[in-house]
């Protein structure tokens, strides 16, 4: 009977620790509310493992299903810069692809912005293109809220071509 009580106590302890960990992890996930279309978000979630080559991924911010043509237009016209040639131009324009934005901590190049020994914040948003063959292609990396227009759809909504 005493042994049973001991076992019960240990079970409660382990259960408590496990619940705490699950709740903690769920809390981290709950801070990220992905936007976009369901298929796009699902595609980005499934590609997260491959995208984690670029750093630590915390979650999907946005997933938008679109076409290669729309992505090429967006990549070439989203900035006040002329002469950009999208690297996706050689793909079939009508094929479907997904623009994925992940939150996390990434290792892309960025100039130092701090003084002394203070660490320059690494990029916290990764944007990749999920191609028709299932591979991913890096588009860019930056900081949350400072990468507009985030997707081809957002550029169109803002009145871009």
């Amino acid at each position, binding site marked *: 009977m005493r042994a049973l009580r001991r076992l019960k106590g240990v079970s409660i302890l382990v259960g408590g620790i496990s619940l705490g960990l699950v709740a903690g992890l769920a809390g981290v996930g709950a801070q990220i509310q992905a936007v976009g279309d369901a298929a796009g978000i699902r595609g980005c979630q499934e590609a997260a493992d491959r995208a984690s080559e670029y750093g630590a991924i915390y979650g999907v911010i946005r997933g938008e299903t679109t076409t290669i043509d729309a992505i090429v237009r967006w990549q070439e016209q989203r900035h006040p810069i002329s*002469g950009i040639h999208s690297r996706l131009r050689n793909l079939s324009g009508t094929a479907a692809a997904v623009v994925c934005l992940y939150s996390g901590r990434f290792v892309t190049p960025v100039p130092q912005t701090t003084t002394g020994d203070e660490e*320059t914040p690494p990029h916290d948003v990764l944007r990749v293109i999920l191609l028709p063959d299932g591979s991913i292609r890096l588009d860019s990396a930056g900081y949350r809220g400072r990468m507009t227009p985030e997707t081809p759809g957002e550029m169109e909504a803002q009145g871009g071509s």
Partner: protein
Amino acid sequence: MKSAVVFFLFAALTYSFTTPGPVAATFIHKYSVAYETTGSGYTGLSLIRTTRAVTGQVATGCSFPYSGEPVYQTSWVMLNNSDPSWKEIGIGHQCNDTFRYYFWGYGLNGAWFPLGEQLGITNGQSHSFKIASNVLGAAIWDRWYIDSTVKAELQFQVVDGTGTEVRVGLETYAGGAQVLPYDNISMKYQKNAGGFSNWAGQDTSLVQSPLCGDWGGATSWSPGQGLGVCN
């Protein structure tokens, strides 16, 4: 007996959540940078840089540029410092230095937009790296060069002519890596799409531990990592 079981469980859990795996390394993001900052209107830079071997780097990031725990031997034309916009050309090392590449691109509002990469480069070689603005008719074209080859060209329509400074140095995400000091020599800057001039005055530098850096003169900067001092 009960306290012994509790102690064992806590010890096991603590160990499992704090002990790194075999390839884990400490995440860092540090720089060794020299600056040319006199006046404004910077549009370009040029230098000769040796591709330096990296040792002690973890074997991650073996498939794509800008992944794993990279070390970048690089250079920047800063167009805006506070919400940084820039043009960049450099060398990336990943995967215990078995995955190496030249890269070039630009930044807007702090975000990095790669324009291209050249894979399969060799350590120990020196090449010239240049970013230049050229006036062609009514337009100003920005070009990225390695040796005499144009790697990319485009037109910044808004920010040209506002460059705040040029920088040369080492950026690392590889906590355990070592990089012997290497040469960036013949460092020049370009202003307002004009001719190139030598860096002058050793304006300023920033070296963050565990990196090092040393001026070899006004037109030469030697950065390294994990060695204490670079001179």
